[in-house]
């Protein structure tokens, strides 16, 4: 564990070797000498440009710190943070994880979990887009936003092993299109489309795995939001 230098400037590229032998290389986002905490930013492991992996390294438990490239530019200005958004994200993440865990506990099949996640993620973007269209200001109202967002979650919940969508459509195992039941209406039609697409994508994925050439299109389809 090397004594960290007191001057680890923001923006510098640093390489850290933890006591566990993990080597982390990244750009310094922040360094707190008092707590010996170093925050590094690394390119996302998923390769997406706008995302990144962030490491909070406890230099007290780091063997060596090496400055690869000293930053000469002033650190970027800090931006204001939307706490509401952060709070909402945390609640959403926690809710999803807990919901997922509950479903697992209920013995839901992986297919069901996947479908559930798909529906959940499908709904969320729709809700978000709606909000954006309606009035961006709504994003600023925590309650409203959260309500809308949570509505998406609530609209897709587990009831035993059944997936309840919008309180109108019930998807029971094995979670096929034909398993979607509920009062006829837009909701049912919509859910069926989602389910149909979900399994189509799964098939495509499988195909892609078999033939890498198709991976690209599949990924694209996955990314495209469901069009109502």
């Amino acid at each position, binding site marked *: 564990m090397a004594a960290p230098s007191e001057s680890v400037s923001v923006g510098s590229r640093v390489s850290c070797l933890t006591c566990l032998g993990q080597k982390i290389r990244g750009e310094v986002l922040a360094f707190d000498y008092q707590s010996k905490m170093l925050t590094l930013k690394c390119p996302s492991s998923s390769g997406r440009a706008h*995302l990144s*992996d962030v490491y909070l390294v406890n230099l007290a438990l780091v063997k060596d710190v090496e400055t690869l490239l000293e930053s000469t530019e002033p650190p970027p200005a800090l931006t204001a943070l939307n706490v509401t958004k952060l709070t909402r994200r945390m609640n959403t993440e926690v809710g999803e994880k807990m919901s997922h865990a509950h479903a697992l506990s209920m013995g839901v099949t992986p297919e069901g979990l996947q479908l559930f996640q798909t529906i959940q993620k499908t709904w969320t973007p729709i809700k978000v887009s709606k909000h954006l269209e309606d009035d961006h200001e709504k994003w600023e109202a925590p309650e409203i936003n959260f309500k809308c967002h949570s509505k998406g979650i609530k609209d897709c919940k587990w009831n035993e092993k059944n997936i309840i969508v919008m309180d109108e459509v019930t998807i029971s195992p094995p979670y096929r299109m034909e398993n979607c039941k509920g009062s006829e209406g837009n909701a049912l039609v919509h859910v069926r489309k989602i389910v149909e697409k979900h399994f189509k994508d799964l098939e495509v994925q499988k195909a892609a795995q078999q033939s890498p050439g198709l991976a690209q299109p599949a990924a694209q389809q996955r990314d495209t939001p469901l069009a109502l």
Partner: protein
Amino acid sequence: MSAVKFAGGRKPGSRPPLGRVRPISRNSLQSPSLVQEAAYINTRMVHVLTSLVGAKCELTVKSGKVFEGIFRTYGPKVELVLEAAHQQKADISPLGPRVEEILDTIVFNPSDYVMMQYKDVDLNFAAREGFTDGVIVRRVNGEHQDRELEPWQGGETANDDNSSLETDVSNGWDPNEMFRYNEENYGVKSTYDSTLSTYTTQLERDDSEEFQKREARAEQLAREIEATTQYRTHTNLEDDERSEEDKFGAVPRRITTAISSERDKESPGGIHPRGRYVPPNQRSRDGLGRGGLRQNSPKFGRQSMTSASHRGGHRYPEQSGSPILESRPLAGGSRGPPVRSQTSPSPKPQVDALPMATIITGSLPAACSSGSFHTSPPQPGSHVPISAQPVLLSLSASPSVASSGGLQVSSVTTSPRSPSPVIPTEQPRSLGSLESHSSSETDTSGRTQMHSPAQDGQEADVLPEPVMPGDSALEPQGIKTVTPGQSTTTWTLSTTTRGSYQTISDVKKNSLEEFKRFSEEFKLPDEKSSVGATETVEPGVPGDSTSLVTGSNDEVRKGLTGSPSTVSDSTCAEDKSDERGHISSSPEGELEKGEKPECEAEQTKKSTLNPNAKEFVLNPSAKPFVPMQKQVQTPTPSRPQQVSPSVMVPQTAAALCSPQPLAGYPTPIIPLSPVPTGYTMPVPVSQHKPYRPSKDRRLNIQSNIWGDYSSASQVSFVFALKPPPTLAGAMTPVRSEHPHAQGAQAILHQVSMAPVSAPPLVSYSPAFMPYSPQHFPNQPSLMAYQHPHQGGAVYPSLMQGGSRVLATTQMAPGQPGLVHAPSSSSPQFPPPDTAPHPQTIYAHPSQAASAHAGQAQHNRPVPSPVQHQPAQGPQPQQALYSTALVSQGPHTQAAGYPPPHPGQPQPIYALHHPQHHSYNSPAALAPNQQVHMQSGLPSMGPQPHAAHTAQVVLMAHPQSSAHSGPPPPPPHQGHLPLSGIPSMPVSSATPFAYMTLQPQRERLSVVSTRLRLP
């Protein structure tokens, strides 16, 4: 690894990292000094971690175990809190942990974890917001520091284009060409008439007096409007040559800003950098420059002339004439007063007399009182100016100019009552005489009263002139001119007195003749005054009280004009005659002279007036007054002892002031009534020093009053010298100068009577000032007023006049109180009559007062009428008169007051009273006191009253009668308390208290006083 669960998921005492974290510093490294919140001090760390809230993370512990959860928050020592965390184990299904495997919240101590990894995090998640106006505004609002705006440098060309378009006059059709074209091509014949006779009535210009009056009035109004701070503010905005970009642009241009700041600095002075707008002050400067000291005497003549014209047209005419002059005076008054007074007080005053009005306005504007005047309809302004002039006159006059000013004032006061026609003629004469007097007086008057006798005759003439000033409109100008020459403080006083005079002017007109008589009588008073016997003066006064008063005024003026030293004497006389304004100015001179003692006494009275001024302070803005204070300060030293006599004089002055008095009042009233003091303001009184000997009652009164006033004036002057401090000092002196106070009261009464009262209050305020520091803002004005107070009577009268005007035109504008006074004056008056007030304060007072004191008797007659008028209040002139009367009344009441004072030495008064008392006692406590009470009321009473009135004014102004009442109360309070009125505390305590309380208290006190008096 230690995991602690927190119910809230947040460590207690830890500051939640969530929230908009704003960069405090750009240094990533934080000083280790702050250990407690180390992690929170590092803004960058806080920012990064906060932006990761809600992100999935994998935390690696020293043991190598990995916990996966959702990052919730962190503690001061970077304890990490994970929500819904579970340990990554081989036995956990790839689909995810089961509920049983999830821990709601885990807290990891920094010593336990090696690192925490956030995968696929969008660091801009929290910062990224929709690109909507709302979001943008939200982000920018209050965070302009985030980015510095840079001025756009590319706009020069566009500006040039615009300018070219604006300046290109050749472009477009000539109207006639258009008409012709339409007629030829379309057969449309234009009916356009450049005169727009279809839409508006053409102004028919002629040389008629009426038209001149109207024109003067219009000019006066315009001046007053232009003198208002609001107008200046707007004008400055319009004239601000800075581009809108400079003025309102969000992007600061340093260079331009610097320029603008410079401009602003300049503009405040009143002068526009580029000269588009010439504030009154600047004008005044010019006027000052113009007004030669000695030349003033000529000016005086002019003033008198103007005043005469004013007589015809009353205030308005004078105003019209004065406009230019006034402008000058203003400048002088504001800045050069002292100098002017020194150099050639009399000349300037005359020349500047008109200007002085403006000056007064200007100065007054600065001060609340002046402001009130200005704001208040033209009349008030005119009054103020007038009063200011008197003060100025008295100040400068104390020298020669002052005397002239004082004369004018006195004349004004008298003129109102006396038939206007006579006055005019007299005024010219008086002017001439005044000038001569001034010269002679300056030479002798200041020092010797002997001159006064001779001057008396002149004074009589002068009186007419004063009368002219008395016409509020005209007077203002004259006064203004005068004021410029005189010291600022003095100016204010004079102005106030003039205001009262103006109001009274109408009455004066009626009493012009009387004034003439008085002038003769004055001689006697002068003699008496020289003797220092108020009684003598009174006797003479009764018969010719008005004339005496005028005479005294003239004398005072003369004395003022004569020489500074003489002025002091004359000032005393003036003060007496003018009560405060003149007195204040003159007193100084007098004080310096042999008569100083009396002057001092008067001054003390005046000082009391000053207290009243404090009240005024509230009204106005006091700034103008400040200058006056300065002047006052100088005088102070001389103040002194003549208080008792001066007191007497004030009453007389009041009598003079009150139109009615002319007949009855003449002598008595004048001496006693504050109004007279106001007249005295003209300074004749002060000048009277010489006069005193010669002049009769008035002289005596003046002398007495003057003496008081002079002392008061001296005090006030001293104050003036010591701008702020002076106030306090002046205040005390003033107080000591109960006479003045009375005069002030009288003035106040007058003022109160008329809307104008407010201004007087201002003048009074000075006295108050000393009393209560708080008044300071106003105090400045007060200070000035104090002088006025000394000349106090003048102020009151002016005030009254102003009040009239105000009532008619600007009742409310300047000072609410004032306004009220005008309107309410009539109603209020009745009340006063009933009980109220303060005996002294108003007509009632006058009546009562008259009853009370022998001199009061003199006053009584007049006062009563006046009072009646006040009661009638509604009538502007009458109201004015009434105000004057009231003032007188107050004086008379003052007589009543005096007793109270004696009996109830108020703490505040005590200060002042001491002088008064001393004066009184010296003079002849019982008799004199009575006299003082009556006549002294004006002077003595006035001071207290003045102070009270000043307070009252503020309060009372609203109610004309109330004014009188209120003012008295304050003083009375002091006095009244004696009488048993509750007001005492107020008076003694703080000006403010008085201010607020005074009205009621005053009334109460007044009532009590009245009751007692009867």
